[in-house]
């Protein structure tokens, strides 16, 4: 994750969709977390990655409003169910914050999009970066041009819930 240009992190989100059951009802559970190549993911479900702008020079904190995440399937939009663990806006400060879990009513089989609105927040520069006399050239520096709102889409092909 580190190279000569001090690129410390790529702005990408790991999205996993898994069919789950709760009191006889089938749901599609969507797990969203900051992509981290060191993480070992348990088996099951289907995964995709949402990549945002890649030229950040430091980890850019993000905010995701779980209530605004949408599932699109066969021309129909689904809102998160009340069984979701994540509600409202949540800030992802670093790559090791707990994942977000959002549950949707399981859609019919077919191509399914998970639309995630992401707000990239300005990063607080490190002490060394704020010091004009710093001689360190490996200081992570924020990239203000990346701050703003993005819409990430993760795409899956789902089987029927009963299978």
């Amino acid at each position, binding site marked *: 994750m580190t190279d000569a240009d001090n690129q410390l992190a790529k702005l990408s989100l790991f999205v996993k969709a898994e069919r789950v*059951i709760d009191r006889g009802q089938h749901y599609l*559970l969507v*797990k969203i977390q900051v992509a981290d190549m060191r*993480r070992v993911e*348990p088996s*099951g479900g289907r995964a995709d990655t949402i990549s945002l702008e890649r030229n950040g020079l430091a980890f850019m904190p993000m905010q995701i409003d779980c209530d605004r995440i949408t599932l699109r399937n066969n021309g129909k939009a689904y809102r998160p169910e009340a069984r979701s663990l994540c509600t409202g806006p949540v800030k992802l400060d*670093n790559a090791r914050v*707990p994942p977000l879990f959002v549950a949707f009513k399981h859609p019919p089989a077919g191509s399914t999009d998970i639309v995630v609105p992401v707000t990239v927040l300005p990063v607080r520069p490190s*002490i060394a970066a704020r010091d004009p006399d710093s001689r360190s050239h490996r200081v992570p520096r924020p990239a203000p041009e990346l701050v703003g709102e993005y819409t990430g889409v993760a795409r899956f092909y789902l089987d029927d819930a009963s299978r």
Partner: protein
Amino acid sequence: MNHQSSSSARLASIVMGITVALLAGCTETLVGFNAIYPSNTVSVVGGPPHPDTVQFALSRNSYPSSKRTVHPMPQRAILKLNGYLPLLPSEVTQEGDRTIIRMRLPVDLIKTVKAGAMSHTQIHGELILPFDVGVPAFGGGEYREPRSQTVHVQLTPVFNGPMTRTAEKIGGFLRGLYAAR
């Protein structure tokens, strides 16, 4: 004639034995789930099996060692079992320097295991332990950065009944034979 009656009696006893064994198999009861948390870096200790909850103990070793202050948040621990919605603690208690967490297992999981469909299946998942790291601020005090530690979980159903006890006896006998070898 005598020979015929003795062989039919033997056949009847075998059939009866099989019937008793099958009936005994139906009376196996679910005691609970044995949970193990295999990890090389952190320690999570599973509690005794309980029919509808899973219990585990967290200590200082359940979180990564750091020069910074670690603020555990056991009330926000998440147990995510494959195929089920994530679970939050139903009860968190402090016993000395250990935190005991109990989580109510999904009713669908218990129902499936009781029905025998997953009686010999391990259920896998992950336990997510959120915590804050205290970062000292220059103006004094500290600000907190949220982090999390993830541990793999394996749940194995535990049954009790005539079949289980017989299997335990046979297993003990075979282990004894192996040890005496």
